């Protein structure tokens, strides 16, 4: 059957085309800096993390206990006025064992793989996960459904950040 697809252009380059000087390049790099205000709800979340506690907001209409805490419930679209402490334990909803840095470079031979996970926090509504890291665990041993507990930085080192929790380790 005749292929009548219309294709034009998109000329592939090889590394040699560039190395040999056949193709010119111009280069630049950007150094962007930001300082983000943490907002009404998350500011309290961070303040509580600094104290070694996890706090959620509760919607009085749908009764969800939500993490991270919110100024408003995105489903009911009403303010979340109730604060509620939740546990610093949870269940691994899913995880990965990552051998790649953020810029796609590979981790070094003596560097450990990164262990991101979605953790459903005990005391929050079902399915209410946060992204965090796992630690003190053999990657081969990680299972979905595993119970984990937060490992906090020493109080003096906490800054009011999600990384005041170093990682979650198996219970």
């Amino acid at each position: 059957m005749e292929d009548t697809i219309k294709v034009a252009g998109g000329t592939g380059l090889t590394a040699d085309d560039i190395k040999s000087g056949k193709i010119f390049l111009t280069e630049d790099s950007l150094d962007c800096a930001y300082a983000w205000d943490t907002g009404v709800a998350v500011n309290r979340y961070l303040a509580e993390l600094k104290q070694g506690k996890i706090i959620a907001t509760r919607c009085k209409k749908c009764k969800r206990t939500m993490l991270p805490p919110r100024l408003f419930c995105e489903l009911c679209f009403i303010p979340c006025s109730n604060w509620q402490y939740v546990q610093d334990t949870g269940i691994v909803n899913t995880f990965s064992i990552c051998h790649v840095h953020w810029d796609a470079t590979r981790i070094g031979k003596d560097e450990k793989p990164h262990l991101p996970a979605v953790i459903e926090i005990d005391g929050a509504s079902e399915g209410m996960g946060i992204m965090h890291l796992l630690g003190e665990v053999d990657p081969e041993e990680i299972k979905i459904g595993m119970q984990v507990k937060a490992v906090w930085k020493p109080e003096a080192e906490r800054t009011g950040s999600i990384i005041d929790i170093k990682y979650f380790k198996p219970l």
Partner: protein
Amino acid sequence: MMRKVAIVGAGMTSFVRRALETPKELSYQATKVTLDSCGLTLDDVDCIAHGTAPDAFDGLHQNGEYMVDGCGGWNKPTMRVYVGGGTGIHAVVHGWHHVASGLFDTCLVVCEEKMSSALPHAQAFFLTIFDSITERPLEPNLLWIFALEMNRYMERYGYTKEDMALVAVKNKQNGLKHPASQFSEKVTVEDVVNSEMMAYPVSRLDVSPVSDGAAAVLLASERVARRLTDKPVWIEGVGWSLDTAYWATRDLYYPRYTDTAARMAYDMAGIREPDKEIHVAEPYDPFDYKALHHLEGLQLSPRGKTVELLRDGHFDIDGNLPMCPSGGLLGVGNPIAAAGTMKVCELFWQLRGEAGQRQVPGNPRRGVAQSWGDLMQVSSVVVVGN
């Protein structure tokens, strides 16, 4: 009252790892070949709907404005849409509005992506997709979310890495027959499973490549379409949806955003039983598992039964519901925004019987294309028919 809208022309550049051409030049090449495909010139185009994904890839703020000359947008009503990987089909939906509303008789939809300029790797620029306060301090990378989703999806239904690899093998095999494909080599399940482990369960060949390229379609009102061609391909339904940005609070095993978007498009198209009424499907496949995940969201396969159907050949070119006959992102390439539009081009060619060696047998009369993006939360869906 909405007017009928047809696709009357389609075209694209080759997808390549690194293109000589600039974004503007790639846009021009796809635009020009599309106009030529239906015998029109820029004077016949009333307006432009264009798309390109993150500005950060190009290091050009407001990249849409930079592209405008290549899209034929000079001095015309021109509007860019951007929903990450969803852009390529969302731009078609956007163009559909322009013509369906009655405001314009023709609309050129052009999507372009040049990922190779970003150093050391385009993936780095997705870092800024994560919540700046509650997630970024964890130093996440884009692969994490796909790996987390793939793992959850596989666990839920007991699918294996070998099962997922079958999609990469099949799509890449289809792509070998696509004249714009970036690839020339066949891969096997063993190749995929044994390729470098990047972020368990994601191995390197589970992932589509980094690409440069552009693709375009020309949309026309019924009056103009009937004059231009005796084989118009009608846009019968469009749908789109954005799920919550609190992505860790959705259960990742099911793409709710795709479900919502698909139902919207099927309702508009009057489709009640999509698995019977759709003859060819182009679900978004930046990762092999994603094609299956999206087929379930598109209501084209029962949840948890998709691997069984895949193994039975149900989604082969000569199966009951051919999936990604183009080769998809895994088999043709993945210049983000352009990849979605490429899928609409494919349906146009398939429904006109012009897909050459990739032609789905039995004169397919109805197809669906879907793209996905943002923080794993958007789907855009287009249903076409003749």
